[in-house]
């Protein structure tokens, strides 16, 4: 067993209104960042977990996302990194 640090992004699904993202986009526009087209505000989770190898750690976090960390109705998730912790 080794310890791995798995980072996962969870964001509101495209097509679903994200009022936080819209508020941030409006603020960025007012700051002069005219190129901003869309902002979606989500969550970034960093999970330290013991697993036999990195693939197993990633699979475990995918399972966690499906069962608890992300809402399958409204959110998408993406594994950002898997590193030795």
């Amino acid at each position: 067993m080794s310890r791995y640090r798995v980072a996962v992004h969870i964001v509101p699904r495209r097509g679903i209104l994200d009022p936080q993202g819209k508020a941030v986009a409006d603020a960025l526009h007012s700051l002069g960042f005219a190129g901003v087209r869309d902002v979606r505000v989500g969550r970034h989770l960093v999970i330290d977990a013991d697993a036999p190898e990195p693939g197993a750690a990633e699979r475990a976090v995918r399972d966690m996302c499906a069962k608890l960390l992300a809402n399958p109705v409204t959110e998408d998730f993406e594994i950002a990194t898997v590193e030795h912790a």
Partner: protein
Amino acid sequence: MKFGIVRFPGSNSDEDAFLAVTDVLAQEAVWLWHKDHELRGADVIILPGGFSYGDYLRAGAIARFSPIMREVVAHADRGGPVIGICNGFQIACEAGLLPGALLRNASLQFVSELSRVRVETSETRFSNQYERGQILRLPIAHGEGRYTADEATLDRLEQNGQVVFRYVNAAGEVDTTADPNGSSRGIAGIVNERGNVLGLMPHPERAAEAVVGSADGVALFESVLANVGV
């Protein structure tokens, strides 16, 4: 009739539900703690409003995994009635008892007001003591009440008569100004396909006596009493 009122850490409408059931309806009620493993003989389960487990992660996401919820889901699977109010609606969606999800209000603001909702069907075990089209005054108090589901699910809810309550304006019409949280199609409350699980954002238990501003919520509980065993 025995009502079981679930208490999670962070529930805050539990006492209101208890009083509505016992004082106003003169029914029996028992408390169910989130760590309990049995329903103590309750016929009807109420998942009350509040901020269970601090609403960490997502509203209702953690509460869904508490021991009592295993029993509540089994009760619903047997056809037993379950009423999810506000946070209870969020928990019921997270637990898969109802389709869809409740997201942050479109305004990003917490709304606390006396809402106007229209009864869309009187043919459910939770609305049979109302008239279809009747307008109710029920309080709302939530930050995450924007009912969201994909278009196919919304169409199915409408076709099956599962939309029980909608937010309306003073003229009794659905419009964007009457919708306090940006819910899809103005939906304030739905039942599952089998009709034994109700979820709604407004608080009928806080509208149980005229002295607090409205008694329009009483008939919801009377509907359950009229229809249990059917």
